[in-house]
């Protein structure tokens, strides 16, 4: 009896591990239009209304926990204000949430109305409704999908600058791969100066990006701004329009520039704490066809 149980346990375990590895392997090989991607999108579509509802319902809880974290950081001030804060905590959390959302939306509108949106694009405002719990997957899920005109490879901007691009869509949600993802690479230009390179991530550290492949004779200083280059050569073109702010140079040692043709920058967009983004949906006749 016991041996039979052990055999059954081992068989089920082997079956599940084999199923996982088969799924991983097949998923990795197939295109976005493959059956596994399709099945995944169907499940995601079914659950998206629950996800949206839960996101709104649980936002006060999330904000309360985040508020505690921020308060812990500022514990020097906390001591004197503890009594007052305790009575106003709930009210403050609600007000801060609304204020933060309004501020983020306003900054987002300011950014996209500042001339960086090329003709033929229609910015779609979306709420970030999901995030992976590991630092390995630098992706977020937004509540707008192909039904709202969002397509794969559409650029995505946050309130302060470039956030990433759309990599998967369902009718009412989309996956945005952030510029901190291992697969991300964005052609960029340093201003002023005009030196060009490719912005790549430092995986697991969302506050550090690298600008690689710089020309050997370019001299870049800390504090300079990095924007998307948006190059176009014949039929080949960057999916990102030129001039979208990416970040600010934080480390630019002469040695590293000469040896590795690399400098470091921190992204303008707060990629771990953004509630709204704008997807620059591109229509026929736009900058990318």
């Amino acid at each position: 009896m016991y041996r039979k149980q052990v055999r059954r346990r081992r068989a089920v375990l082997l079956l599940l591990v084999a199923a996982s590895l088969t799924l991983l392997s097949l998923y990795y090989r197939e295109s976005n239009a493959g059956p596994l991607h399709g099945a995944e999108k169907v499940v995601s579509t079914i659950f998206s209304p629950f996800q949206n509802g839960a996101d709104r319902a649980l936002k006060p809880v999330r904000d309360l926990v985040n508020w505690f974290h921020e308060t812990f950081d500022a514990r020097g001030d906390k001591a004197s204000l503890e009594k007052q804060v305790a009575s106003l905590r709930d009210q403050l959390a609600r007000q801060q949430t609304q204020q933060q959302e309004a501020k983020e939306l306003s900054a987002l509108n300011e950014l996209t109305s500042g001339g960086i949106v090329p003709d033929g694009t229609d910015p779609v405002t979306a709420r970030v409704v999901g995030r992976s719990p590991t630092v390995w997957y630098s992706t977020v899920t937004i509540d707008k999908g192909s039904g709202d005109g969002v397509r794969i490879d559409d650029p995505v901007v946050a309130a302060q600058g470039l956030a990433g691009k759309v990599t998967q869509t369902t009718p009412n949600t989309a996956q945005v791969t952030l510029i901190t993802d291992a697969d991300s690479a964005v052609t960029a230009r340093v201003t002023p100066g005009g030196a060009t390179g490719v912005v790549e991530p430092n995986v697991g550290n969302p506050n550090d990006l690298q600008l690689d492949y710089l020309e050997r004779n370019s001299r870049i200083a800390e504090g300079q701004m990095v924007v998307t280059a948006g190059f176009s050569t014949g039929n080949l073109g960057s999916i990102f329009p030129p001039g979208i702010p990416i970040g600010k140079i934080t480390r630019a040692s002469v040695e590293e520039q000469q040896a590795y043709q690399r400098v470091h920058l921190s992204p303008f967009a707060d990629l771990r704490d953004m509630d709204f983004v704008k997807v620059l949906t591109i229509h026929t006749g736009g900058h990318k066809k």
Partner: protein
Amino acid sequence: MILTPGIIARLAVLGAVVVIAQVVCFSKMDVFGSDPDVLLLVVFSVGVMGGSLTGAVFGFSVGLLMDCLLLETLGGFALTLLSVGYVAGRYRETVGRPTRGAIPLLGAAMTLLGALVIAAIQIGTGVDANVSFLVVRDAIVTSLIGAALAIPVLLGVRLVVRSALVDERRAARRPTGARAVETP
């Protein structure tokens, strides 16, 4: 754990609710620069209470749902949570019911195991960018959060599946005030 259709339904609802809560709420929380992995602790709890088979199947199912909701590589979270559920169940089957003191340690160890498996999958599928020290720091902080949350999560899951637990049934049958005498 005695698996009746009712208990399977409860586990399914529990899994779906926790996956959604993990994606929309827990993953967006900032606790000492990391976020709590409550889903992993729920899988650990089911493994500890239900055994390796139940833990592995539950972990695989909720992991698959997690992959679908995040539109990530199908099988990644499934394999991770399957490992956690199985190892937690094997602990129960070989060592016995964990004591109060052991639960936080097991919670931390399982969270670390989850981080290692997901890292192995990522490296196996070809992450070719520089991996920073923050990945290690994140794994350690998440494990500490896992240790802190292990007991409350285990008690929460126990409430959901209480009627299916053999130990609880024995305790309920035992007359009040009677001395504990176990018969084979």
